[in-house]
């Protein structure tokens, strides 16, 4: 069995950390065929239980300031060790997304395909809204995910 899963990571009530859930909400308005949409926050270790070996998984998460706010990055986490690339993924918890993915890789528990979309956040203050730059990135990532799904064949 295999599935296409898109998981938006982040806290919807913490400024640009809401990027992941916001992308899921944008996709849910016109759901891509055959893709399971869900969100995640808090314990990144639990992600390892969210996919099966044959799944194609797309993760969306905010990145702490490093480049210009709203800058979108697409990483093929299945093909390369991304500890450094992912080091800035924003997490207020001790086990961040990069560590969870690398733990999954060491244990042979990554899915067949694992793509990570990120966008630079500008503000992670509790209670604040998405910044304009990150809001624009939401639409861009949603469009690129739809394009990914159009160009990829059925799950194998």
């Amino acid at each position: 069995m295999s599935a296409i899963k898109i998981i938006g990571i982040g806290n919807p009530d913490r400024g640009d950390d809401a990027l992941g859930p916001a992308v899921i909400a944008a996709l849910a308005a016109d759901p891509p065929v055959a893709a399971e949409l869900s969100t995640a926050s808090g314990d990144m270790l639990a992600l390892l239980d969210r996919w099966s070996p044959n799944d194609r998984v797309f993760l969306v998460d905010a990145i702490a300031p490093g480049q210009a706010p709203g800058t979108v990055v697409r990483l093929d986490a299945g093909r390369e060790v991304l500890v450094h690339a992912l080091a800035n993924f924003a997490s207020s918890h001790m086990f961040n997304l990069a560590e969870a993915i690398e733990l999954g890789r060491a244990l042979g528990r990554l899915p067949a395909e694992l793509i990570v979309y990120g966008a630079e956040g500008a503000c992670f203050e509790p209670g604040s809204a998405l910044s304009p730059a990150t809001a624009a990135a939401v639409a861009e990532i949603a469009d690129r995910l739809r394009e990914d799904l159009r160009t990829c064949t059925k799950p194998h």
Partner: protein
Amino acid sequence: MTERRRIKVDYMARVEGEGALDVVIDGNRVTDVKLKIFEPPRFFEAFLQGRHFTETPDITARICGICPVAYQMSAVHALENACGVVIDGPLRALRRLLYCGEWIESHVLHIYMLHAPDFLGVHNVVEIAQTQPAIVERGLRLKKAGNAIVALLGGREIHPINVRVGGFYKIPSRAEFDKLAATLEVAREDALATVAWVAGFDFPDFTRDYELVALRHPDEYPFNEGRIVSNRGLDIAQTDYHAHFEECHVEHSTALHCRLRARGNYHVGPLARFALNHDRLGALARATANAVGLDPDCRNPFKSIVVRAVEVVEAVDEALRILRTLEFPDAPSMPVEPRAATGLAATEAPRGLLHHTYRISADGLIEHAQIIPPTSQNQASIEDDLGAFIAPRLGLDDDTLQWQCEQAVRNYDPCISCSTHFLKLNVTRR
């Protein structure tokens, strides 16, 4: 001229929240140790003012993603104390079951993911997984068993939503409890293997003469109830906490320190609980502690990882005991009517004693809230440990000394987010 060394860790890794360590060494003397907590204050006690007392378990659960159950339990006990209600029978047993889940989740996360890398000389659990994947898989499986308890009884794994003053909103079905018991049978074997694993680590030769403080119950290993006792004669009701303990502000921390009015710094957490309550452990956990030579007189904070592993055995075994003998409550909660009163209660969070105080009005609005987390209570003890630990090890190079200091801080599994109401390491040698 005296040589001055400074060891600084600007952001400590493998702790929850944001803090730093700054150690100054003048020649052969440690002249300053500061555990700097700079995570912004979170003002939960102020948020609670004016809210209805029934909202408290949901608000306080948000203080910590690792130990939300502890916050909920201390809150509901304190508020029930204010309202003159005592919850017993099946609801009491189910609260204890929920707490077992949190101890398993929290302790296993700390043992496998955060503290074991220190003892194995690696940077993180990913490096353990690269050479010993079966061990890490065991840790993940065991943590998941704890998650399963909290998810079932708490409504979800993080920030549970099913706890209310007076009991729960909903009680799971017999079939769901039976499925949980099957998971815990496997977890018990994993917990026993965990004790054997961590007991084989090398521990630095280091002990301190702590005043150890924990709850003590007449016949149970303490979760929710008991008198507050110490190894130096303290033996008080939970409601007398403020007469014996005081919070104080120190400039280098956004978390208040807490001290015993009579004797100063003290130590809460697994080492204290085990020392004061080893005779209350169930037969399996007691036998397991004995088998690995864990002595109730142990005062080596580095061995707290072994105590945590023994407490995981106790939590899994106790959860199974509760499930075996579980009777279903007539209702998911007992009615609790507000009255103008002050309520106080402490429970044993995974990291140690967690005390809550609430004053509520006749119509149930919170007028005053005071929350004293375990990491706040342990901050001064952590600084004392570091001063005593570093002094005989000044010959070590800065990198080794820094590594060992960080390990010493992690002995406490400090939860900085909880305590701010907290870590980076700086050592200065002068």
